[in-house]
């Protein structure tokens, strides 16, 4: 027996009255784990029972420990009839299974009932004695740590990053199994909750096994999702990045270690800067022993375009798909097809979509069509074809190419063959240590429309039996087809992503994520990421100067392990091009990642390149879209802002294949429009790069919705974006002209206003970029709006405006007019507010510890009779804007503040009903410092920006050496903060903001004079979607929180209608998350995410149901101010008591 689980039921409080006669309750508790159940005595006639039970001991193997949740049921004893259930608590004991996390779970848990919500609380103590039996680790993966955080967790150092891990588990959905509905809703809900808990446990264990196989000990960026496929079943799938992590000893955290490593990191490359100039011209082939050669990335893509074998991204095990890819490269003749053939390409798309692509493969997939838009498309969409005729064809060409490619791939080999693990050089991380990310190619994404079929699970029996009967099937032994189908689907998509990355001259994909949208039996699978070149320098010599070594020492391992095992060969040329790769290191960190990884002469798409505005040595694109967070070292000018593209497309109601076909046909247009909108809005804000891009396409019965969110910034390395120019189509109408010019003025004004608002004032560059192939620093670009525009108009506008270059919007019909209008309807946030969807707001660094995490949900009926795309678009747009407005209003007391990690999720629960859920965190920042920064002279702003970044990113983004680096920084910072708060902010202002928990204010307010507080025992648990807490230091990760709840009501009106119902439910979910974290000994949840919120109502029956799935990392944090008060002497025990003392609001 490898483990002994011990549970003690201490007491209950505030139980509901179960016996109307006495107004009391005779409560007892059932404790269940696996097949074993224990019961406490009945504690008669009390709403606050004191059971104080013995220790219930479960002797179980660790596999069970990982899969099973501990189930605690509180019941009311009834002598004459069946005992009534009061509610349940599920406790995931996983955090107790690894040594560094929690050792005991102890505290008050809300007793939850799926019909009544929270009904009192129960005090439970749980412990696990694990017998370390290493041989047993075959089936279980105890000890593998899981993190939702998409960066290396703060108090760890990554020794090796192994790479991508994924797994999925399929089962019948209990909700759909009992169609006869013999069971009560409660039983059905509980069965579902339990099943999902089991499935996630199993999934986690299996992923853990894979990690152990790779010799890792942790999964970072773990993202687990549920697909409620309805009748076809339930899929739980997860992706993550396997790592070997080393806990940083606490001692180092308290030592005044070396100076900011990141600073040095920054300086080094700068110092070396002047040298490479000698080699800065000529597309010379890389030479050995040369310290700096020209654009190594070029050689990659050149080689890859000529022969795929050079870039052996895939391991030997998957040989087949490689060969045909030759066709996809830009140089190949397929791409030379010309522009006016949009229709043709569409037709082609259609053709390919209808054709069953895996005829050889027995699968339920009738249709398979995937649409992929990569950065190339974006660039193409921005019309940077440098005057080539094929502008408007660009995106569709790309599409076509992807299509061909994937088709060919399919033919090349059965999907089964290449769905091996670890062939995908993907990273779910979004933040990396400085210098790790060499180049970023752009966003790569792939979508595919699938028809869901019933997941047959013949061996699934004993539904009503004991708990163990839910034990999931191991499909390897039973029905190998089924999960394989889902596996194969994802494998195809990943394969596509990989090849897109390759086409961009990149060998890896970072910031990778996957998602689905399901409506009836149609499912859209989506994957996206950012193609990137990762730094190989560390592969060659791991020894780097001083602190650098320490911080980056893990990287060699990363690559060496990879190649040694033959899993991922990232750097096929590494043997002969050490010097060549060395140059990557030399590119200034502030801009290096912007430099193009692909071959300039052989670009995968028509793009417009200039020399980097920062280093002047390498080429950069004019815009950059990525899914990752802004790199630590990036030099940013001004502030960032949230940019959203919103889109609705009507679709005919259809069944099965016809439905899938029409969706497939709509997808490319939607993506194109979404990207156009993003590009326009980016330009409207005078910015040139997007980070954290997330595009969601949601499918409903009669429409598709697209919502893209990203954070726009102005990267100093990229050229200043041109403006937007409007061109009218009917030039003879004077009033029309006037209208156009009026609109043009409005747009120009908006751009100017935005530049001011976001403080975008790049240093004026003398036009001395000699040797640039592009003589004009700004390029003219052109966007053609729709297929109705024929190519002859191109000549009309092209080049005719001379130096005045801009992004041209043609207004040829009312649609276009509407679109321009909608561009202008985006209201900037009220003063004092900023927003972004990344971890940190570029350009703001002086956060105070006041945070407020929130979830807002809205369901609205879009439009009315005869909806058109335009009205829908407008309504959708208004819905989002109003939602944002109301958030700003709600949080007005926190001003100045920034909404970070704004995460919108769109669902279409019914015809014309749109559900938007937003989770974000508002963080107050210190205005005075911000003002100072504003006043900094313009010429200094660039430098300022970089140092700002440096500081601001200290705690959020420090990947592996946070305690080392932030510690030396923090004292100074604290002093600064303290000083500013004393001088700058009136005490009254702080005092009035009572609900905010500023540590300073808290310090002052901790007088505990309020008599009411004396008997409170509820500790404060902070929640944030970010991976860090401003002004605080995470000292310990206690384990992953992954919870799934169902709530149902049959008295909707009585509970305050849909809003009352959901409001209570969300509050309950928060409460349960907080209780679990507190019981683990934690005081915060970081990287919190609400992955699912499925709401269904039936007002006629007065019923509603909601499913919510949340996850995050439970942590212990210590305020930086408190850290200082601690003795400098290293004491591992010190932080915890301090933190708990500080945060228990007694």
């Amino acid at each position, binding site marked *: 027996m490898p483990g002994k689980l011990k549970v003690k039921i201490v007491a209950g409080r505030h139980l509901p009255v179960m016996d109307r006669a006495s107004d009391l309750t005779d409560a007892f508790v059932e404790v269940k784990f696996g097949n074993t159940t224990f019961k406490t005595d009945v504690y008669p006639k009390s709403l606050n029972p004191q059971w104080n039970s013995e220790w219930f001991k479960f002797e179980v193997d660790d596999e069970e420990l990982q899969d099973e949740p501990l189930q605690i049921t509180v019941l009311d004893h009834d002598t004459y009839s069946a005992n009534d259930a009061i509610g349940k608590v599920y406790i995931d004991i996983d955090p107790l299974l690894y040594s560094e996390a929690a050792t005991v779970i102890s505290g008050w848990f*809300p007793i939850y009932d799926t019909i009544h919500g929270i009904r009192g609380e129960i005090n439970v103590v749980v412990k696990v004695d694990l017998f370390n039996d290493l041989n047993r680790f075959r089936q279980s993966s105890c000890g593998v740590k899981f993190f939702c955080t998409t960066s290396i967790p703060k108090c760890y150092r990554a020794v090796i990053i192994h790479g991508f891990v994924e797994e999925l588990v399929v089962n019948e959905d209990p909700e759909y199994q009992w169609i006869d509905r013999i069971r009560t809703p409660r039983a059905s809900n509980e069965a579902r909750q339990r099943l999902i808990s089991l499935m996630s446990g199993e999934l986690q264990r299996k992923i853990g096994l894979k990690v152990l196989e790779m010799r890792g000990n942790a999964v970072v960026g773990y993202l687990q999702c549920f697909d409620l496929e309805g009748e076809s079943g339930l899929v739980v799938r997860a992706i993550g990045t396997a790592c070997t992590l080393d806990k940083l000893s606490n001692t180092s955290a308290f030592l005044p270690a070396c100076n900011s490593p990141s600073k040095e990191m920054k300086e080094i490359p700068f110092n070396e800067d002047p040298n490479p100039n000698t080699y800065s011209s000529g597309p010379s082939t890389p030479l050995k022993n040369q310290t700096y050669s020209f654009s190594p990335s070029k050689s990659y893509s050149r080689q890859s375009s000529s022969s795929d074998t050079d870039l052996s991204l895939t391991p030997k095990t998957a040989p087949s798909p490689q060969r045909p890819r030759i066709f996809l490269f830009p140089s190949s003749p397929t791409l030379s097809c010309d522009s006016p053939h949009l229709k043709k390409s569409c037709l082609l798309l259609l053709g390919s979509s209808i054709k069953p692509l895996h005829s050889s493969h027995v699968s339920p997939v009738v249709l398979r069509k995937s649409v992929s838009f990569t950065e190339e498309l974006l660039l193409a969409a921005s019309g940077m074809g440098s005057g080539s005729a094929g502008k408007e064809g660009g995106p569709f060409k790309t599409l076509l190419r992807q299509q061909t490619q994937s088709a060919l791939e399919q033919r090349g080999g059965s999907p089964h063959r290449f769905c091996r693990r670890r062939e995908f050089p993907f990273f779910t991380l979004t933040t990396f240590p400085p210098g790790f990310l060499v180049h970023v190619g752009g966003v790569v994404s792939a979508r595919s429309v699938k028809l869901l079929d019933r997941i047959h699970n013949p061996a699934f029996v004993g539904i009503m039996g004991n708990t163990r009967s839910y034990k999931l099937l191991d499909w390897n032994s039973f029905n190998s087809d089924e999960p394989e189908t889902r596996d194969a689907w994802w494998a195809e998509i990943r394969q596509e992503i990989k090849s897109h990355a390759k086409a961009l001259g990149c060998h890896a994909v970072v910031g990778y994520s996957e998602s689905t949208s399901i409506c009836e039996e149609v499912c859209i699978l989506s994957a996206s990421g950012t193609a990137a070149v990762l730094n190989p320098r560390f592969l060659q010599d791991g020894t780097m100067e001083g602190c650098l070594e320490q911080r980056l020492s893990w990287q060699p391992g990363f690559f060496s392990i990879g190649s040694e095992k033959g899993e991922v060969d990232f750097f096929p040329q590494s043997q002969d091009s050490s010097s060549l790769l060395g140059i990557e290191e030399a590119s200034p960190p502030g801009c290096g990642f912007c430099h193009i990884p692909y071959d300039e002469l052989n670009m995968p798409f028509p793009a417009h390149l200039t020399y980097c505005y920062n280093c002047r040595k390498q080429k950069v694109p004019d815009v950059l879209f990525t899914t990752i967070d802004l790199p630590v070292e990036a030099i940013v000018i001004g502030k960032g802002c949230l940019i959203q593209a919103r889109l609705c497309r009507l679709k005919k109601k259809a069944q099965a294949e016809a439905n899938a076909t029409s969706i497939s046909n709509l997808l490319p247009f939607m993506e194109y429009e979404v990207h156009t909108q993003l590009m326009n809005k980016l330009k409207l804000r005078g910015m040139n790069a997007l980070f954290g891009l997330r595009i969601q396409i949601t499918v409903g019965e009669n429409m598709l919705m697209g919502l893209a969110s990203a954070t726009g910034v102005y990267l100093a390395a990229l050229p200043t974006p041109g403006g937007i120019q409007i061109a009218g189509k009917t030039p003879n109408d004077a009033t029309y002209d006037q209208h156009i010019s009026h609109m043009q003025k409005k747009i120009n004004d908006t751009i100017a206003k935005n530049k001011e608002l976001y403080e975008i004032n790049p240093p004026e560059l003398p036009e001395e970029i000699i040797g640039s192939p592009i003589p004009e620093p700004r390029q003219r670009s052109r966007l053609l709006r729709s297929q109705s525009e024929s190519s002859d108009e191109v000549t009309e506008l092209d080049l005719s405006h001379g130096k005045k270059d801009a992004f041209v919007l043609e207004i040829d019909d009312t649609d276009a007019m509407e679109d321009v209008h909608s561009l202008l309807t985006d209201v900037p946030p009220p003063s004092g507010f900023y927003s972004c969807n990344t971890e940190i707001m570029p350009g703001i660094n002086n956060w105070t510890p006041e945070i407020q995490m*929130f979830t807002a949900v809205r369901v609205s009926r879009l439009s009315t009779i005869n909806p058109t795309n335009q009205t829908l678009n407008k309504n959708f747009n208004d819905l989002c804007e109003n939602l944002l407005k109301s958030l700003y209003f709600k949080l007005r007391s926190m001003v100045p503040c920034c909404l970070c990690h704004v995460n919108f999720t769109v669902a279409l629960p019914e015809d014309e009903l749109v559900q938007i859920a937003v989770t974000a965190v508002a963080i107050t920042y210190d205005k005075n410092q911000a003002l100072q920064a504003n006043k900094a002279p313009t010429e200094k702003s660039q430098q300022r920006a970089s140092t700002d970044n440096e500081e601001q990113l200290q705690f959020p983004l420090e990947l592996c050496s946070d305690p080392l680096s932030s510690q030396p920084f923090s004292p100074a910072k604290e002093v600064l903060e303290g000083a500013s708060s004393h001088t700058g902010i009136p005490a009254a202002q702080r005092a009035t903001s009572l609900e905010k928990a500023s540590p300073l204010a808290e310090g002052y307010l901790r007088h505990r004079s309020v008599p009411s507080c004396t008997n409170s025992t509820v500790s404060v648990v902070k929640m944030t979607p970010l991976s860090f807490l401003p002004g605080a230091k995470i000292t310990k990760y206690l384990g992953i929180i992954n919870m799934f709840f169902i709530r149902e009501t049959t008295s909707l009106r009585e509970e305050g209608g849909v809003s009352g119902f959901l409001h209570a439910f969300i509050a309950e979910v928060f409460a349960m998350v*907080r209780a679990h974290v507190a019981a683990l000994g934690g005081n915060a949840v970081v990287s919190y995410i609400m992955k699912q919120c499925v709401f269904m109502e039936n007002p006629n029956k007065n019923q509603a149901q909601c499913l919510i799935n949340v996850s995050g990392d439970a942590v212990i944090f210590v305020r930086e101010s408190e850290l200082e008060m601690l003795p400098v002497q290293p004491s591992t025990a010190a932080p915890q008591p301090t933190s708990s003392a500080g945060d228990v609001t007694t």
Partner: protein
Amino acid sequence: MSSDLDVFVGNTTLIDEEVYRLWLDGHSVAEAVARRLRGGVLEREGTSVAVLQSDTRDHYRTFQMLERLLHAPPRLLQQLLFQIPPERQALLVQRYYAFDEALARELLGKKLSKGTKKELDEVSARTGVGIRSCRRQFDNFKRVFKAVEELRGPLAENIQQLFLLDYAAIVFFANSRFETGKRRLQFLSFADFAACAQSMMGHWSQGALGEPPDPRAPEAAEPDGDLPKSFLQDLKELKVLVADKDLLDQHKSLVCSALRGKISVYNELEANFKALSRALVNVGGKLTHARDVRDFFVDLVEKVIEPCRSDKWSPGDLRLFLTHYTAARHQALWERYMAAITACLLRMYHD
């Protein structure tokens, strides 16, 4: 485009003080929105009416969910559903249990029964307090009354512990059912009565003796809201002061000699001494009978305050008189009794 469902939930529960006030005052969402609009929030924040409505509804829902917890303030501290900083929790409770004095004055001494609740419409009209607010406050009184009823120990402390507030006066009045509604008592405000209640509890109740109540004593089992029976019984002994003519004369001469020349109304005092003394002593003697207890304040006003007022005593005169009147006799019981009476009279002696 209508929002069917619209919620905002913060990890830290947002409490808008203004909206809380509107909610407590019993305004509907629409009324609250209208009032907020008049408050000029739109101009300040540059937002829309729809946003304001949505915000108000959110807050109202939160308050409705909180209300259940507010009914038992200690539960609010222990509950896990809403994460509210302690100072905010205290504010919620204080505001929830805060009462309009006008209303409290109306309800003082009334039985907190259904009948009284039905009269709230009139009370609301008289006091200008919203009917919903009236009902909430009435329920608050009742809740506090009911919760304290069964508890032992000092009333004020119990209430403080349970409701974190000073509700003692109301409970004390509701308990003893003093008459407060008579016309001649109308000049007294709630604050006056509250102060009287406080001094009576302070000086007369069991806990006030400063010694732990003897568990064997019969009154230890009584709730603190009632005055201790033994004390009231003892007060009967004081009657001898007015019944025995010698004692009365002795008392009078002691007081008069002490006050001669010091008090402007000496002649009136001398003339009225016996009547005043009789009134002061008899008020205490009557406290044993529940029916007579009702008249406590009426008697004080009718037999002490009004005569003094008609003789144009200044408050200073009254104070001097009472001080010497009390000091003329040395008896613990007498001093304990007169301490509260003095405090009450001084408080009540105004126009």
